[in-house]
């Protein structure tokens, strides 16, 4: 699905990541962990094309990400669902339209997707909040709405950046449950988190691999968490 080959990234003040190689196989579930500032978000951005590596190559769906033009990049983003750390909503639109935003911008007819949309809202437990504006949502509701938006185009890969960062344990369990269900439907999942308890909880339910960023390198953490 997504493949990083000897990827390095440099913000200008020294290398943040160097010689990172990883392959996200279809249907796999990966956790990405590491201390704050280690480059978790940067690595995720490299995976969905928001950043271009300073060295090495990123391939997604057998396409070289660096070689994509802006329109091809937009099409790539429709195939990768991303839950951003800060959710990134349009604050002037109600939740339901924010969730439907990928449908809207890809020119799909919303009236035909109405049933799917309702089902999805129900799945993330936001049916009652459909008409609320994003700033009115709680942290957990925002994360669930962001997850719903990331899967609306039924992408093959879902990338989540600290989806449980601002929510309590019960809510993070609920979010994890949703991610696990998506993985069971065959989606490839990559979740950045520093919450070890969440990783342990996930390991009981799915075959999850853990990648750790340490000293600019990506290492496969063992099962000994």
């Amino acid at each position, binding site marked *: 699905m997504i493949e990083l080959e000897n990827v390095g990234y440099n913000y200008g003040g020294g290398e943040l990541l160097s010689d990172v190689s990883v392959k996200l196989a279809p249907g796999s579930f990966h956790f990405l962990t590491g201390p704050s500032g280690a480059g978790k978000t940067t690595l995720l951005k490299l995976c969905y*094309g*928001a*950043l271009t590596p300073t060295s090495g190559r990123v391939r997604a769906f057998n396409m070289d990400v660096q070689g994509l033009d*802006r*329109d091809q*990049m*937009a*099409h*790539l*983003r*429709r195939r990768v669902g*991303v839950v*951003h750390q800060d959710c*990134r*909503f*349009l604050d*002037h*639109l109600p939740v339901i*339209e924010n969730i439907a*935003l*990928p449908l*809207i*911008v*890809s*020119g799909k007819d*919303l009236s035909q997707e109405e049933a799917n949309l309702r089902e999805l809202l129900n799945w993330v437990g936001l049916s009652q909040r459909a008409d609320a504006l994003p700033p009115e949502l709680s942290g957990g509701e925002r994360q669930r709405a962001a997850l719903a*938006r990331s899967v609306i*185009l039924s992408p093959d890969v879902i990338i989540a950046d600290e989806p449980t960062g601002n929510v309590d344990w019960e809510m993070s369990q609920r979010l994890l449950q949703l991610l696990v269900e998506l993985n069971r439907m065959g989606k490839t999942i990559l979740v950045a988190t520093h919450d070890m308890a969440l990783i342990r909880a996930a390991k009981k339910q799915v075959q999850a691999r853990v990648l750790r960023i340490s000293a600019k390198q990506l290492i496969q953490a063992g099962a000994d968490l």
Partner: protein
Amino acid sequence: MSEGRLRKLIMGDAQADRVVPPSGFTAQLTLFVSGAMAFLAVFALALSLASGRLATRWADELARAATLRINAPAEQRVAQTEAALTILRQTPGVASARAFTTEEQIELLAPWFGSALPIDSLPVPQLIEVIEGDPGYDGTGLRLRLQAELPGAVLDDHTRWRAPLVDAARALRRLGAVSILLIAGATAAMITLAANAALAANAQVIEVLRLVGALDSYIAHAFVRRFTLRALGGAAVGVVLGMFGVWLMPAASNEGGFLTGLGFQGWAWGLPLLIPPLGALVAFAATTRAAKKRLGDLT
């Protein structure tokens, strides 16, 4: 632009429209600017057309006419006039020659001396209107002959004062045309500024749209459509007001001179109607360019 895209631009997409938050104040400014510019464009157009008409008329009418002025003592005037008319009738290239009647001369002098002028008591020269035929007469030859036979006759073919008038009218027309171009340029500049402001104010929105997979064309379209329609609407209002203003101007008359001729005649009333679509076109090009440049800076 394909027909489908054009239709989409005009009809719009209700969902796509909501994606960019409404912008109250800049919207009003764009409307006002395009309205004011269209209003000015109507006047520049009227001025340009009227001076163009004037230049053509003057050039045409005056080129074909000349005046023979006979300065002679009152008792010889009638005889000299007859002689001059005879010479003129014999000259090849003169289509007709006619002495002005006393009434006509009084009428010509009325603007300066009033109509109650006892013209008989004044040494007013007799005027003869000479209309040139095609091909025209030989001016130099005619002058030489007149000089020899009627020393008091002066042939004035109007060139001396015609040329600067026609030049002035043509310059006025050029100024009008330059004004229209400047107005179009200023409109483009102001709409570019407004579009840039709107794009900058909505940088977050644009970023989110890119993140969820919107194409540049989709994002640009949302802005371009707004600004194009605003420019079209504003210009339409401006043109209607401008045309009303021109329509209120007094009709062309001899008393008012050329100033009252400012306006549109016949089919030219249709010309200002082109201003709103052209304004929309200018806005479309300006916003498209601004959006392309802005979006190119984003990932």
